């Protein structure tokens, strides 16, 4: 396992290698290749992969703190980390020995970039309604369908696709050079604007049956659930980063902007606003730390506490970013400032990896009442 690096190092990396590129990437709708290269060069595309498989083997809290720093600097760069790692997590958990040995080290070294394709135009929150088909013929499978909103689908070299086979919903790994795979860039998405989103069509793509991850029929209940659980953890920390950035920008502005003869920070109502967003950001971080602690312990309750963290952190990010725009007044809505980007990016965290509504439904299925110290599930 990688020796834990101090938070300061993650912050310096994110502020020096990523933050300067955030605005130009956002305006161009394309993550600057130098950012991808910086993540790759530092091993940050293999954070969760064990060292034996070529990764950094980071513990969940270190990984979370790095993700928050990257998210604070640039949500599009954080999104790349999220989707790449959630695919790695699913393969590490459910991939067969051969696929794990071959693909995981390449993902960890950033020689391959992974994307995740679950959503379809008629299957969003209700993923079980998906209609992409996986037809089996002997040792081969044939994949047909259309996926939308695939983050980094424009540059991915391999995609974890969730489709429907005779046995039920099934996950398959699809190299992007497979004949019949076509990508169409989505350029009008304003949240995580440099997320290089694509719609992907699969026109009877022929793959070896070994492309199936886990067992056929377990693609949603186990493979996608593992991927989304990781994704939620990553998005939660990314949202903490957005909230932190919103709080810092708000304080910086309120300390210098003068109205009615004194700086805004000295106005009682402004102090209340600043206090509320600071507390929300801290609370979100605390929930992410708790989820990280439980993940580190391998506790079954980690799945639920990760949902709690993602639910709360995404709300904190939207709240803090919205307040940051407000505190900046008209300037808050100018592209030159970074706060309007924070608000656009924060909103995405409430929609992806299970929207806040869906998390309320999922958490509503859980007995959150008698288990606050985690003693039962450990």
């Amino acid at each position, binding site marked *: 396992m990688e020796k834990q690096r101090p938070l300061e190092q993650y912050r310096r990396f994110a502020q020096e290698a990523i933050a300067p590129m955030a605005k130009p990437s956002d305006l161009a709708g394309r993550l600057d290749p130098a950012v991808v290269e910086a993540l790759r060069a530092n091993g940050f595309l293999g954070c969760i992969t064990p060292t034996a498989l070529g990764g950094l083997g980071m513990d969940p809290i270190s990984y979370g703190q790095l993700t928050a720093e990257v998210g604070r600097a640039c949500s599009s760069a954080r999104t790349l980390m999220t989707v790449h790692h959630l695919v790695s997590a699913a393969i590490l958990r459910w991939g067969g020995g051969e696929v794990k040995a071959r693909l995981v080290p390449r993902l960890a070294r950033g020689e391959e970039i992974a994307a995740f394709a679950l959503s379809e135009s008629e299957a969003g929150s209700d993923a079980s309604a998906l209609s992409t088909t996986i037809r089996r013929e002997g040792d081969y499978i044939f994949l047909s369908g259309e996926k939308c909103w695939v983050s980094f689908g424009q540059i991915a070299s391999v995609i974890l696709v969730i489709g429907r086979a005779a046995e039920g919903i099934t996950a398959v790994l699809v190299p992007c050079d497979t004949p019949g795979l076509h990508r169409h860039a989505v350029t009008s998405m304003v949240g995580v604007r440099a997320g290089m989103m694509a719609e992907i069509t699969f026109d009877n793509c022929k793959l070896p049956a070994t492309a199936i991850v886990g067992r056929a029929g377990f693609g949603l209940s186990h493979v996608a659930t593992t991927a989304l659980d990781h994704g939620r953890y990553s998005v939660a920390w990314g949202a903490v980063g957005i909230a932190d950035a919103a709080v810092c920008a708000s304080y910086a502005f309120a300390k210098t902007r003068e109205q009615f003869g004194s700086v805004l920070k000295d106005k009682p109502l402004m102090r209340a606003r600043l206090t509320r967003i600071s507390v929300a950001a801290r609370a979100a971080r605390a929930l992410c730390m708790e989820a990280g602690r439980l993940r580190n312990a391998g506790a079954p309750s980690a799945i639920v506490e990760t949902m709690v963290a993602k639910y709360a952190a995404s709300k904190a990010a939207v709240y803090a970013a919205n307040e940051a725009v407000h505190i900046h007044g008209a300037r808050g809505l100018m592209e030159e400032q970074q706060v309007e980007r924070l608000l656009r990016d924060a909103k995405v965290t409430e929609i992806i990896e299970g929207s806040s509504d869906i998390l309320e439904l999922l958490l509503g*299925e859980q007995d959150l009442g008698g*288990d606050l110290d985690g003693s039962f599930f450990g």
Partner: protein
Amino acid sequence: MVFSNTFEGEERKAGASLKLPDIRAFVAKSLMREVADDENFFETGFVTSMFGMQLITFLEKRYEIEVLDEDLDLTNFCTLNNIVAFIDRKLS
């Protein structure tokens, strides 16, 4: 009820008498209802979408086993008795 996080070796190898109440309590807590030992809980309509992964994470930690992709067979996990039999096979 509070369990220790891991079993000692002897306890871990003990038979169904120890495991069954343990797993029964976990499933009851997760599904917020009691289930009979031979009841297929995937057919009851009470299984939540997170349950499959929660159950596997619990079994792995509790019994120090690794559930592999080839173990993904609903018969291994659909009743309390089948889960106990699965754990016994993994530990043997």
